[in-house]
Each structure stands twice: as structure tokens, then as C-alpha cells.
């Protein structure tokens, strides 16, 4: 399974890569911004995208909207990864039509399982 991580924080990308690759045995592709993420999504054709919510210039929801607008990427399931903790904020994100929302801090030992569970929903 190939997963694209879009997050502006390189440390978070690194941890998520280890969690998904070492523990979850997934192929991991990274992007550090929404724009780079959309390009990578078109080229790499990942099975799922893990998308950060708060990013400079283009945030998670805008990136998701652009992905939805492209024929090449609108079939790829997206999961938000957010540091927002209020239930209302999380519900607002879910309502955008993503596969699911995972919150930070995440447990790297179960991150891959959580991603798979959301995909199977």
C-alpha cells in the first residue's frame, strides 16, 4: 500500500514515515506543502493521503478541495491529521467529506492500523 503524507513539519513527516513504513509496512511518499502534495498525488497515485490541516499558504481543507477538483486525484481517499482537539472542530473536518480524521499526537505503533481501519469503513 502506498501512502502520501502532506505535512509542513518535517519532524512529523519523519515520525509518520517510520510509523507507517517500519510498523505498518507501507510505501511512504512525502510532501511538505499542499501544492507539492497535489503534484505528488498526481504522479505517485497513492492509495491514501494523510493530510495535515494547519499549513501555511494552502491549508488542509483547501488542498483537499483541489484534490477533489482533479479527475486524476478525486478518487484517492484522504485522511486528515490534525492537532485540533475540540469535538466541534473535528466534526467540521469530517463534514468536508474525507475518509476520516486522526488527531495529534498519534501513537506511531497503531497509526497504520488506524489508517487501514478508516479505509475499510
Amino acid at each position, binding site marked *: 500500500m502506498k501512502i502520501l503524507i502532506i505535512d509542513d513539519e518535517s519532524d*512529523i513527516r*519523519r*515520525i509518520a514515515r517510520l510509523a507507517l513504513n517500519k*510498523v505498518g509496512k507501507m510505501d511512504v511518499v512525502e510532501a511538505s506543502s499542499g501544492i507539492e502534495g497535489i503534484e505528488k498525488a498526481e504522479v505517485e497515485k497513492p492509495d491514501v493521503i494523510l493530510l495535515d490541516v494547519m499549513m501555511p499558504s494552502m491549508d488542509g481543507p483547501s488542498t483537499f478541495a483541489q484534490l477533489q477538483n482533479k479527475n486524476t486525484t478525486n478518487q484517492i481517499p484522504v485522511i486528515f491529521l490534525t*492537532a485540533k482537539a*475540540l469535538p466541534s472542530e473535528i466534526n467540521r473536518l469530517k463534514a468536508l467529506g474525507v475518509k476520516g480524521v486522526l488527531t495529534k*499526537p498519534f501513537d506511531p505503533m497503531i497509526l497504520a*492500523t488506524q489508517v487501514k481501519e478508516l479505509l475499510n469503513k
Partner: protein
Amino acid sequence: MQAKTNHCVLPNEEERIRVLYSYDILDTLPEVEFDNIVYLAKQICQTPIALISLVDKDRQWFKAKIGLELSETPRRESFCTHTILEQEHLQVCDAKLDSRFAKSSLVTEEPHIRFYAGVPLITPNEYCIGALCVMGFTPYQLKAEQIESLRRLSHQVITQLELKQHIKASKISETRTKAIIDNMLLGLIVTNENGIIESVNPMAEKVFFYKEEELIGKHLSLLIPQLTDATRLSFLQTSASQNQKSQARIYWQGLSKNGDKLFLELSVYEFSTSKGLRFASNIREVSDQQKLEELKTNFISTINHELRTPLTSINGALNLLSSGVLGILPEEAQEIVQLAERNSVRLVSLLNDILDLQRLEASRSEMNFEVSDLSQLVVLSSKEILALARKKNISVTLNTTEIKVFADHKHLIQAITNLLKNAIKFSPANSVIKVVIEEINQWATVKIIDQGCGIEANHLSTIFDKFKQVDFKDNRQQGGVGLGLAISKAIIEQHNGIMGVESVIDKGSTFWFRLPAVWTLDDQSNNLKNQAFSILAKSSSHLHKINHENAFAKSPEILLVDDDKELLEILSIDLSQRGLSVTTSTNGQEAVRIAQENLPNLIVLDINIPNGNGFEVVEKLRSEPKLRNISLIIYSGRDLTGEQKTKLSLGPTRFLTKTRVSSADFRNNVLELLNSNAE
């Protein structure tokens, strides 16, 4: 009038003078009411002189007079002092024949007084402050009815004095009240029962930018547009009654004259007047406070995000290191990593607490209230702290009565759990924490009584403050009391309840809260309660009696069997943290022995284990009636055939494959089996 006698000392002189002065009448200008009285006295008695004489410390002063020029004379020669002494009327028909007055200069010289008659002025509290008297220049005698008329006129003098005193007092009080209202920091608007404004104070003018005259006679809805005609009266009445009940403030959006929207805190109270019911609304503009509150919310939200992001990296890195995915660490390094991991978990929970508290304080928490059985919520809360209690061998007992409350389950359980955690934290090992639920005056009351070191009296009032860690007597650092109590208190307050604490040093503390009790005959929640107790009852093989003192702190027992010691450790820790009592075994023979001794509620069994594999273990367990119905999870790396599964079944049995289930899935399966077990 004067007479040359010794200065008489009157009874209760000091008090008498104080009473006289309280009328504030000495040395005031003539007043028509008193002048009329002396005129009538003169006419009735047919004498040339009539006076109202008030007897001061060393003078008599005339409030009203006819036929005499003097306005006061020294007291030592006063006729009236004798009238006061007599307490009744005094009549001197011929002063020249009366030894008390015959040599008085008033008699021997100008104005040559020969006749005197006076009645005392007696106040309601029985002090004589002076006399109403008539005098003449020839011997004379009043008839009985004339003296009676004088006596009645003297009552009129006192009535006038009393009346003037009351008017003065009420004027002072009115001035004082007006000064207070005019200088209040709160806006005050008084309306009639139709919501028509009758008066406003300067602060209300300032808040709404209206002048008083622009508001009087207008509807209150001019200032608070949400109030329609239909709702106005009920709004006022509801607000007033709510205010009386709970001191609660009500928030409304107001509108100023220049169109600005105002955020108002309103407290309404009702009072009756001769014109009917009136409502006084205290109004405080909290728009600035509201803006500050929003700033605070945004600030906390930002800080939350900014802290959570680096914590994600730290936490994740530590998890990966300690899990061994990146290579096995030396033992000491492993310990240090775990230390760091524990502390980063603590930081995350602190962050969550801050968010929780902020939401509660801003009343932004999503609450789902429903009629609930309080003891059931206490039982659920206690499950959360079982592992913690067990660590210190603390037992928790429950003494309950059936009471229903209106509660948001999630939050109330959080509040009770915090209190229990706090009690455990400050209790000595091997002690008992008592939880008592009782109904007191229609309040459902929960008391959590510990045998800890107690709290100094001067700390009791601040213990619910944020980040308050009380200095306990033994000076031991208990680590992060932090926000738990503040959160509990905020939750209880959101439930319209009250929380408090009582404590005795070296004996322990009682944290209590009370919620309004709800009275319904709700069989369904009764069933829920029974169910909760039945889970507890069945989950503990040690529990014999579930009646009054419910020893519910005994948790469901699980036997984990696997030859992988590390896996056993990870699973034990995880399940213990969920309040389960865990025993482990690494071989088949030992597992069967433990099962026979402990009668666990659930066994988790690997297949490839030494001294008798999984199949043999199940066979042994099946052969014993008391063991054959125990719930079982087969947790192995193998894929099993249908036939194998049949051989491995005991009571309710589930099959989980190690590489396919997450730790959360595993845990959920355990909990589900335990719950279905208890039903």
C-alpha cells in the same frame, strides 16, 4: 417657666437628653403646627401665656410661645422641670402661696407670674422631654376638662415631633439610596409588569447612550430587542424567579441608541409596590469581557496547536524507540526513554485538561443531559480508577441510595473520576475510600471520604483553584494536582450543583458535591443500575454480598497465557490501565493451575506454548464444570480451520490473529467479552 429653685436632677437624665436630641428640634425656626397648638392651649385655658417648653441639659427652650418675649431661660428656675418630675400635670393656682415658687424672681419681679399649669410631653418610649404649659398674672384655676384638653394637645406635640423625625429619616434614606443608585457601576432599570420603563440610573443611561427622559414610558424591548410583547412579562418573571433560586445571571443582547450591539449580563428581581409588581433589572455590559474571552479562547487554541505539534514528534519518537521497531535499546536507555514517554503523556493530558477547563468555563462544552441513576455513574467512575487503587492496595466502598439526577454522563463521570483519583493520590496505602450517596433536602449528595493526611484549613478555600497543589502536612510532592479539581468543580456547576470539601488534619478529607435530585419512576434506568451492579458482582469472584456496602473496587480478572514475555507485559499494562486485574502465565500447565485457583472471568490463550499447548489447555479446562464456561480469546499467529476452532472453544470464545488486530482491537474484544459475560 423659671422659678428660683435648685436645679432638679431628672430620672434617666442622660437617656432623656439623648431622646430629646434625636428629634433634632432645639433651636429650629418656629413652625406653624406647633404655633397652632399653643394658640389652642391659650384659647381653651383662657390664659395670657402658652408655651411648648423643651428641657435641655441646663436650659429650657421654647419651640412655640404666645404672650412671652423670651425664647429660653435657665433650667434651674424652670416650672416645667417640676412638671416633668411630677410625671403628671402640675397646677400652681397662686405662686405667692406656694413655697416652691413664692420667692421666685418670676413671681416677685417682671413678669409677675401668679398662675402656672403644665402637662408633660411624653415620648412613645416614655421619656419626658418638656411640657406644654399655660400661665397668668392673677391667681387662677383650670377646670378638669381644660387640663384634659392640655393633655391631649401635648400628645399632638409629640405626634408632630415624631412625624417630622420620620420625614427627615426617610429623606436621608432616600438621598442615600439615590446616591448609591446614581453612582452604581451597574445599570439599573425599573419597569412595571408590562415591561414599561419607570426609572433608569445614570449608568444605564451611559450603557445605552439614552437620556432618562428618552426611556421613561418606553418598552424594555427598546433596549433588549429580543423581547417581544408576548414574551416580555414571562421573561421578567422567569428571570426574577431564576435569579431568586440560583443567583444565576442571564445573558442578553442589547441595543444602544447609536445601534451598537451590546452583550449584557442581567439580573432581575421582583418587588411589590402600592402600584403593583415592579421589576428591577441590574445590567452589566460585558462586551469587553466577551471580547477578552474570545481572545483567551483563540490564544488557548493557538497555544494548544503550537504545543501539540512538537509533542507529536516527541511522543512519536519515544514510542518508536521504546517499541524496539528501530532496534533494541540497552536496558538503561530503555528505562530513560520510558521515563520521557511517561512525561510526554503527562504533558498531553495536561494540554487536554486546559482545553477541557477552558471549554467548561466558557460554557462551550457540548452537554447531553439525561435523567440518570447517580449510583450507576459513580460505579462507572470507580471502574476508571481500579488500577490506580490497586497499586496502593486501597479499597473503595460504596454506600448508596437510589437517586436520579439530570446529568451528562461523560462529564459527570469525569468529575467523579477526578475526585476519586485525588482521594487515591492523597490516601495512605492499604486505606479505605468511602463513597456515600444520599439524599439531603432534595439534593443528591455524593461524598468521597478518604483517610489521607487532610488539608490545612487555610487552604480549603483555594483548593478548587486552577493549578493549586496544596502543601500537605508531610510535605511530600504528589505531582500534578493541576486542573483535576477545578475541572470537577466546573462540571458540577454546569450541572447546577455545588462542590465543597471538609477536612481534618491527619484524619482525612471529604470532597462532596450535590446536584438537584430528579424524581421519576423510571424503570429503565433502574434496570441500568441493576445491570451495573451485576457487572461488578459477576466481575469479582471475591464479592459475596451486594447489598448496602458494595465492595465494587474488585475488578474483572483476566488470565493471559503466552510464551512471549514482552507481549505479556505490554498487554498486562494496557489492560491494567483499563481497570482489569491481570495474571500472566508462560506455560500450559501453570495456566490451568492458575485458572483453577483464580476462576478468572476471561482467559487469553496463545496456542504454541510449552508444557501443554493451547488445545491441551482448553481440553483440561473443559473437563472441569466450574471452568468450562469461562470466556476465552485465542490470540495466536496462526490461521485456524473450523475444526480447530471447535476444539479450542470454551465459554464465549473469539479468535484473534496477532498480526491482524491492533492493540485497540484486542482491548475492545476483551472488554466486549467481559461485558457480555456480565449480562
